[in-house]
């Protein structure tokens, strides 16, 4: 199958559903487990991750194809991608702080965390491995972020509801039950398979 022929729209939908980066690749678990306690924070972090991944995916595509490939330095991709992501996160933080104080206050603590979010980094690596075009990368970046946001918001909703309705065995409270819920969610997302296929 010719990867480059897949429509960016398909890639976007697939990245959210069948190829959800969190529920199929289990990337970005640390902040996923830590923040999913609270619905409001999950929404904020989800939005921030989506934004950063949407911007860094094309940025990393440019750096990779225009800089690393011509110089045959593909092996440097890990360190270069991290640099790009870190710098970009800084800029986003500065922008948000200057432009919207309320948003900065909601996201404040999560923004720096995005630098080390595996989801963003994984997204950059996948688009290289799968050989996406520039447009496909934009779509994939947006999809990855949106998929991650969907997963964390869904989990936060579940956890919030469970706190009110159900009794969890004390030993499983916190990360334990969150991991079990994530497992169920991953299985549920298998139901999407067949809608779209990108690999």
């Amino acid at each position, binding site marked *: 199958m010719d990867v480059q022929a897949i429509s960016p729209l398909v890639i976007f939908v697939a990245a959210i559903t069948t190829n959800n980066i969190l529920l199929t690749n289990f990337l970005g678990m640390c902040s996923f487990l830590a923040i999913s306690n609270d619905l409001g924070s999950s929404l904020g972090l989800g939005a921030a991750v989506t934004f950063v991944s949407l911007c860094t995916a094309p940025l990393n595509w440019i*750096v990779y194809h225009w*800089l*690393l490939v011509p*110089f*045959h*330095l593909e092996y*440097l991709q890990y*360190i*270069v991608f991290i*640099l*790009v992501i870190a*710098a970009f996160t*800084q*800029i986003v933080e*500065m*922008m948000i*702080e*200057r*432009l919207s*104080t309320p948003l900065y*206050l909601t996201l*404040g*603590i999560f923004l720096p965390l995005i630098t080390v979010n595996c989801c963003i980094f994984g997204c950059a690596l996948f688009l290289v491995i799968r050989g996406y075009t520039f447009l496909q990368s934009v779509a994939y970046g947006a999809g990855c972020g949106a998929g991650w946001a969907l997963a964390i918001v869904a989990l936060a909703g579940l956890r919030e509801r469970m706190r009110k309705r159900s009794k969890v065995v004390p030993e499983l409270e916190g990360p334990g039950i969150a991991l079990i819920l994530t497992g169920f969610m991953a299985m549920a997302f298998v139901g999407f398979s067949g809608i779209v296929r990108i690999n």
Partner: protein
Amino acid sequence: MSEVVTGVGVLSAVSVGLTVLLLVAEAIFATYGECEIDINKGERTFKVTGGGSLLRTLAGQKLFLPSGCGGRGSCGTCKCKVLDGGGPVLPTELPYLNPEERRTGIRLACQLKVKENVRIEIPADLLSVREFQAVTERITPLTHDIRGLRFRLPEGETVRFKAGQFVNLVSKPYGDVTEPTSRAYSISSAPADNRALELVIRLVPNGLVTTWVFNHLKEGETATLIGPYGEFFLRDSAREIIFIAGGSGLAPIRSIVLDMIERGITHRPATFFFGAVKLRDLYYVEEFQAIAAKHPWFRFKPALSGDETGHPWERGLITDVVARSYGTLDNHEAYLCGSPGMIGACVKVLTGKGLPENLVFYDKFS
């Protein structure tokens, strides 16, 4: 080989490019212009360039709030009260603030960014602890191994301290000594003399800082002083005062006595016992005699423990002199400054005469 060079080159280029990008972004987004910081309702104000954290901005003005983690927001010791201009409390501060602190406007100085004029309140002690680049105005030999030093503060600067407090004097590298070193010395001048600081320093054999003071520091040179610090100062009460000092321990007692004169405290009888071994170890005698002649509440009693004769002073160890000067100590307060041995022995004598230990004050210079 060339692969290594291009690798390093490209990586450097990427880093430089991103840094430039960040600097540009910072110049565009993180500029807040000039802001004014007001401390303790006008006690001190200064203009700074906004954008930095409050902790760093204050440190830039040589005002050091305590900070354990160095501004990473993980220790919570840099708390200070922000009256206005701090903006809303940040999520990074919340874990370190209890509800009472949130209500009263306590903030973490390392998290709060200076974006507009800020008014804050900090403990007065912190405001007065500063680093001075003072000029060595005068060096006076007081005895064969004690010198008096007078440091003039830079033009326009004043210092606020309580009589009896000490400062740290920082030596510059000299000879084999490659690191600046600092030692604590009591201030011997009066707080009213607030454009200068006087110290009394005794040469310690092999001492890093005192050797620098005696052999290297010259009049006219600048020296670094940090302070004031210390809990050794006159307590407010009506009790009779016993001052006991040995050697360079005279310094804070002189400051306290001069301050009492300045403030017109005349209702408290005070006796100053100054212990030394030989006549050559006594100094500032005329000054204290003059004070005693002019102020009936003050008595000056030097005591020599050596076997010299033909002097008008008390003879014997300072502890013995104090012991035979008093009966029961029922309405007294004692202020001691000197070596650990002298202080230990004096505390024993004083408490033996019924003086409660909490009325004996001395600085341990810990």
